[in-house]
C-alpha cells in the first residue's frame, strides 16, 4: 500500500446491499442482466429512438421493446422502476423510507432538475422518503461516487440506510457530440482491451441499490445480497478528459478501497473493469491494474461488461456494480465480449469465450471519468 492511502478509514458500520433494481438493454431486473453479461450476449443494435443518419456510428444498447419508455418523464420513470425493485426486494417500509437519504446520479443538462423533481415526487409518494437528498452529475463516476458516499455515511453510523439511484437514456445531443468527438466505436462493437478497438458505445440503464448497515438489515430480517467491503475515490491530476497513461488515479482509488477493507491484492478474485473500449483509457486502466496487482495480475480474471450493455455514463457504475453483485451470486464471471485478439500493452487475464466459474472472496468494480476522476468499489459475497 502507498502512504497516500493510509488515512482511508476502515468501515465500522459494515455497509451491505439489501435491495437492487435495474433496467438495462438485457431487460428488467438483475436476472436477465446477469445472464446476458455472463454469456457475453451483446445488446447493440441500430438506434431507432432518434435520427442517426448523419452520424459515423449508428449503434447503441437500448432498452428492449418489452421495457418501453414512458411517454412523459421517461428517465425519471425508469429510475423509479429500478428504485421500486430495490425497495421491494429490501422490504423497505414507509417508516424506514422517511429516514433514508436518496442519492441520485444524472447527466447535467437542462432536464436534470425536472427529472430530479419527478424522481423526488415518486420516492416521496411510494417510499416515504423526504425526496432526493443530493444529485451527482460527475460524469462516468457519478453513481460510484454516490455509492461510496452512501457506504461512508452508513459506515460512520450517520444513517442506517441510504438509497442510491442512477439513470441514463441514450439521447440525440450527447450521441451527436460523442460521435463528433470520435469517441464512439466506428465498427459498431465495444471491444474493451482488444486489439483493434475503436471506441465506446452508449447504453440505456437505470439502477438502484439500498445500502444498509448490516446490523440494521439483520434487525429487519432483510436478506443481504452483497457486502460493500471498501471504496476509494481519487483523481489523476492530468487532463480535462484524457486519463493519466500510467493509471495513477485509478491505482490510488483501488489502493484506498483495499486499505479500507484491509484486503491484500491477492485476495481479489475478479475485476469488473471500466473498460470503455477507448484505446487510451483501456491502456491506462491496464497499467493501473499492473501497478496494484503486480505478479497476481496473471491469475486475476478481468472483464468489462460494457462490452455487453454499453456505456451508461452517469449510471454506468451502478449498472456495473449490479453486474458484479450478480456474478458473485451465480459464481459465473462475465465475459469480455467482442474481443478480437491481444493488445500487447494490456496483458490482462480477460474472461473470454464463455463465463468463468469462480467464487471470488472479493471483487472490484472500477470506473473512471472525464476530469481524471476514478472510483473503486470493493464487493464481497453475502
Amino acid at each position, binding site marked *: 500500500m502507498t502512504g497516500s492511502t493510509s488515512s*482511508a478509514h476502515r468501515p465500522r458500520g459494515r455497509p451491505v446491499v439489501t435491495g437492487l433494481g435495474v433496467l438495462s438493454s438485457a431487460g428488467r431486473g438483475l436476472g436477465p442482466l446477469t445472464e446476458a453479461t455472463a454469456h457475453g450476449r451483446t445488446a447493440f443494435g441500430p438506434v431507432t429512438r432518434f435520427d442517426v443518419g448523419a452520424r459515423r456510428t449508428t449503434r447503441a444498447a437500448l432498452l428492449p421493446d418489452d421495457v418501453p419508455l414512458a411517454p412523459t418523464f421517461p428517465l425519471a420513470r425508469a429510475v423509479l422502476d429500478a428504485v421500486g425493485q430495490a425497495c421491494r426486494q429490501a422490504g423497505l417500509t414507509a417508516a424506514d423510507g422517511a429516514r433514508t437519504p436518496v442519492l441520485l446520479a444524472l447527466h447535467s443538462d437542462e432536464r436534470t432538475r425536472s427529472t430530479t423533481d419527478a424522481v423526488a415526487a415518486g420516492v416521496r409518494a411510494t417510499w416515504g422518503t423526504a425526496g432526493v437528498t443530493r444529485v451527482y*452529475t460527475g460524469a462516468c463516476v457519478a453513481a460510484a461516487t454516490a455509492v461510496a458516499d452512501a457506504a461512508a455515511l452508513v459506515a460512520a453510523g450517520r444513517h442506517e440506510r441510504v438509497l442510491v439511484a442512477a439513470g441514463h437514456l441514450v439521447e440525440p445531443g450527447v450521441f451527436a457530440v460523442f*460521435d463528433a468527438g470520435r469517441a464512439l466505436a466506428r465498427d459498431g462493437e465495444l471491444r474493451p482491451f482488444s486489439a483493434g478497438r475503436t471506441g465506446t458505445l452508449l447504453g440505456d440503464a437505470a439502477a438502484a441499490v439500498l445500502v444498509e448497515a448490516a446490523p440494521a438489515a439483520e434487525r429487519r430480517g432483510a436478506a443481504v445480497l452483497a457486502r460493500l467491503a471498501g471504496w476509494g*475515490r481519487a*483523481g489523476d491530476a492530468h487532463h480535462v478528459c484524457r486519463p493519466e497513461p500510467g493509471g495513477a*488515479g485509478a491505482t490510488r482509488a483501488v489502493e484506498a478501497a483495499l486499505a479500507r477493507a484491509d484486503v491484500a491484492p491477492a485476495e481479489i478474485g475478479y475485476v469488473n473493469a471500466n473498460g470503455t473500449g477507448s484505446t487510451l483509457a483501456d491502456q491506462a486502466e491496464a497499467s493501473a491494474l499492473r501497478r496494484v496487482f503486480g505478479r497476481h495480475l496473471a491469475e486475476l480474471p478481468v472483464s468489462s461488461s460494457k462490452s455487453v450493455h454499453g456505456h451508461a455514463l452517469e449510471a454506468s457504475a451502478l449498472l456495473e456494480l449490479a453486474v458484479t453483485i450478480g456474478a458473485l451470486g451465480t459464481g459465473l464471471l462475465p465475459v469480455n465480449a467482442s474481443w478480437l485478439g491481444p493488445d500487447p500493452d494490456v496483458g490482462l487475464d480477460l474472461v473470454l469465450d464463455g463465463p468463468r466459474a469462480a467464487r471470488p472472496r472479493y471483487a472490484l468494480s472500477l470506473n473512471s471519468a472525464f476530469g481524471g476522476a476514478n472510483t473503486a468499489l470493493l464487493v464481497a459475497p453475502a
Partner: protein
Amino acid sequence: MTTDTARTDDTPTDAARTGATPTDVTPTDAVAAAGLRVLAEARRPDPGLAGPPPPLPGFAASGFNPLVADTADRCLRAHHGAPPAPGRTALLLASSDGDRATARAIDQSAEPGRRPAPLLFFRSNPNAVLGHIAARWGLTGPVVAISPARTVPGRVPQDALDLAALLLADGDADRVLVIAAEQGEDGGHAVAVLVTG
C-alpha cells in the same frame, strides 16, 4: 503570496484590504456545523476584480467554465501561492444550473442540418473543467460534481459543505476545494472555499 482579491486565513491583510470576512462567502455557522475550517476563499464578482474572468482555452463557448476555473485558481493561489498543491485535495463543484450554454449547444447539435462541434464532446460534463484545475494544481483527491436543488448566489450550499466534510472524514482527501457557481444572465456568481477538517 497573491495580490488578487482571494482571501486566506494565512493572510489576514487580504481580508482587511477588501473589507471582507469569511462570513461574506460561507456563513460561519454553516462551516462550523459541517466541522470544517476555511483555509482560503475567493469569489466573483468581487469589488477588486474588473471585467470577466480570463478566457479558458478549449472552453470558449460558455462563460461557466472560465468562471469556475478562475475562482478556483484564485482560491488555491491565496493559500498555496503557486502550483502544485501538496497532499491530496479533492475538487467539489456545486452548481444548480450547471453549464447551461454548453448543455443547450449539445442539445442543438442533434438538430437537422447541424454539424456538432467535436470540442463539445470534452465539454459535455462538469468534470472537464475540474480536470483542468486538477491538472494545473496537481490535485489528486476525489473529483466530484453535484447539482443542489437551491442555491444562493455567492454562497456555498450547506449540502456541499456536508459532502466536503464527509470526504475529509472518510479519508480520501486532506483538503477539499468547494466551488459553487451559477452562470446567470449577469456574468454569473462563483465562490470557492478551500476547507479542511
